[in-house]
C-alpha cells in the first residue's frame, strides 16, 4: 500500500480509502503528516474511539502535528451527505449518499491555509465509482486542521511532550501511529524511558535500550 502524495492528495487518499469501502467498512479519519512534501507519519484512531467518542478520536489526530511541529497535513475520512431540503427525517436518511472528505492543511507564516474537497462515491459491481470532487469552504476536519497547525503557543509552562511518549500513549489507547522509514529515529520515538511506560511494558523498554546500546557500541568499534 502506498501512502498518499502531497501533489495528488485527493486521488491518493481515495485510493487508500477504496480497500476499506469495498469491504463494506467505514473509512476512519486518517491523518498523514508531511515534511518537505513527503509523507512521514500516519495516524488513525481505533474502532473503539469512533463508536463512543469522536471527540477523543479527533484529539488523538490533532495532537500529532502539534507535538511534532508538522506543518503539512492531510486528513481524510468517511462523510455522509444528506439533502437538507428533504423535510422527512427518514426519507432524508434513506436518500443519503456517501463520500470521502479530503482536507489538506498547511501553515504559511502565521496562517493556516486549508483545502477541502468532498468526493462522492458509489459501489457498483465490486468497484468504487468516484464522482468528481466538489470543493467546499469547510469540512468535518477543518477545525481540527486549524487547531493542529496553528503556530505553537506556550500556554502553560510545562515541559514538552516527547515524541516517544506521544507514540506510546496513543498506541496504548488503540490509535495506530506509523512512520516512514528512518523517521522513528528522526522523531526520537525510539527513545522511550522505563519511567514513561506502564509496568507491564518496562521489560520491553529495557530490552530495547539494551539493543540500542549494543548497536551503538558496535558502530563505534567499526568507526574507530
Amino acid at each position, binding site marked *: 500500500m*502506498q501512502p498518499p502524495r502531497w501533489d495528488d492528495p485527493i486521488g491518493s487518499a481515495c485510493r487508500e480509502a477504496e480497500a476499506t469501502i469495498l469491504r463494506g467498512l467505514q473509512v476512519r479519519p486518517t491523518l498523514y503528516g508531511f515534511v518537505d512534501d513527503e509523507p512521514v507519519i500516519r495516524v488513525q484512531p481505533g474502532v473503539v474511539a469512533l463508536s463512543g467518542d469522536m471527540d477523543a478520536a479527533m484529539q488523538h489526530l490533532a495532537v500529532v502535528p502539534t507535538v511534532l511541529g508538522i506543518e503539512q497535513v492531510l486528513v481524510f475520512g468517511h462523510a455522509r451527505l444528506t439533502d437538507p431540503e428533504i423535510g422527512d427525517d427518514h426519507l432524508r436518511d434513506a436518500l443519503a449518499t456517501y463520500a470521502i472528505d479530503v482536507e489538506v492543511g498547511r501553515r504559511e507564516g502565521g496562517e493556516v491555509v486549508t483545502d477541502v474537497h468532498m468526493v462522492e462515491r458509489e459501489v457498483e459491481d465490486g468497484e468504487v465509482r468516484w464522482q468528481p470532487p466538489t470543493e467546499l469552504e469547510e469540512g468535518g476536519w477543518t477545525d481540527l486542521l486549524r487547531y493542529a497547525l496553528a503556530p505553537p503557543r506556550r500556554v502553560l509552562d510545562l515541559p514538552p511532550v516527547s515524541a516517544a511518549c506521544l507514540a506510546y500513549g496513543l498506541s496504548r489507547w488503540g490509535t495506530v501511529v506509523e512512520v516512514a522509514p528512518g523517521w522513528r529515529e528522526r522523531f526520537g520515538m525510539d527513545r522511550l524511558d522505563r519511567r514513561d511506560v506502564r509496568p507491564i511494558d518496562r521489560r520491553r523498554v529495557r530490552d530495547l535500550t539494551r539493543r540500542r546500546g549494543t548497536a551503538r557500541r558496535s558502530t563505534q568499534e567499526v568507526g574507530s
Partner: protein
Amino acid sequence: MKGRPTWETYEAWLTGFLDTPDADLLEAPLAMIFTGGHADWLIDARPERPDDEVDPLTELAVVVGELAPDAAVVAAPVRIRDLHEADAPIVSRTWVVTSYAHRADGEGYDLRTRTLPVDGIGSASDLDVEHGPVASVLDDAIRNRLGVAPVHALYTAVSWGHQLMVDGSGEVDLDLSAGAPADAPASGGTRAAEAARHRLGRHARDLATRHQPTAGWPQPLRRPAVHASTPDGWQAACPI
C-alpha cells in the same frame, strides 16, 4: 473435510466444518498456517481452564506470530443463542476469523477480521479488524517476534496442550531435526526446545497482560493499536 484447506478455500472449509458431526464438540479456536497457499499445519486449541494465566487464543496467536508464515488464520468459534431462551441449545454456529497475510509485492503484512456465514446463508463479511478477539495480540506477536525456531514454536504449542494436525499426503517444509513435535510431552525435548518454551511462555504471559482492555474500561475493544494495513516499508512509531 477432505483435503488441505488453501488460502482460497479456507473460509468454505471452515464453514463446511460446522456441518460435520464434530461441530458439536467444537469449543475451541483453530489456527491454520499457510505456506505457498496451502495449509501446512492446523492447530486445534486446548480447552480453556479456569486457572489459566494465558487463554488458549492468546497462546495460538503467540505461536502463529512466532512462526511468521506466509499467511495464517486464527478462527474463533461463535455460538449463537436465542436471546430469549439462553438455556436452550445453540441455534447455530459460525466463526470469527482473523487472518494475517504477508504482502507478495511489497513489504509488511495485512490483517483482516471476517465473520463467516451462519447456516451457510450469505457470504463472509468483513468486520473492523479490532473485532477479532486476538487481532491486537497477533499484530504485536508478529512485530515483536522472539526469533524462536519454528520447530520449537510448534513443540511449545504441543507442550501447552494444543493439538497439531498435518496432512500426511503433502510435503511439509520444516526441519524436524530437533525432534518431532508429537514426541514432545513424553521425551521432554532438547534443552534448546525447553529454553524456547520457557521464553515463549513468558512472552505469552506478557502479551496477555499488555492486551488486556485498557485499565478502567471493561470494553473488550479498548486495546493497543492493531496495525492492519501499514504503508509499504513503514513501521509502527512505538518501538515496543
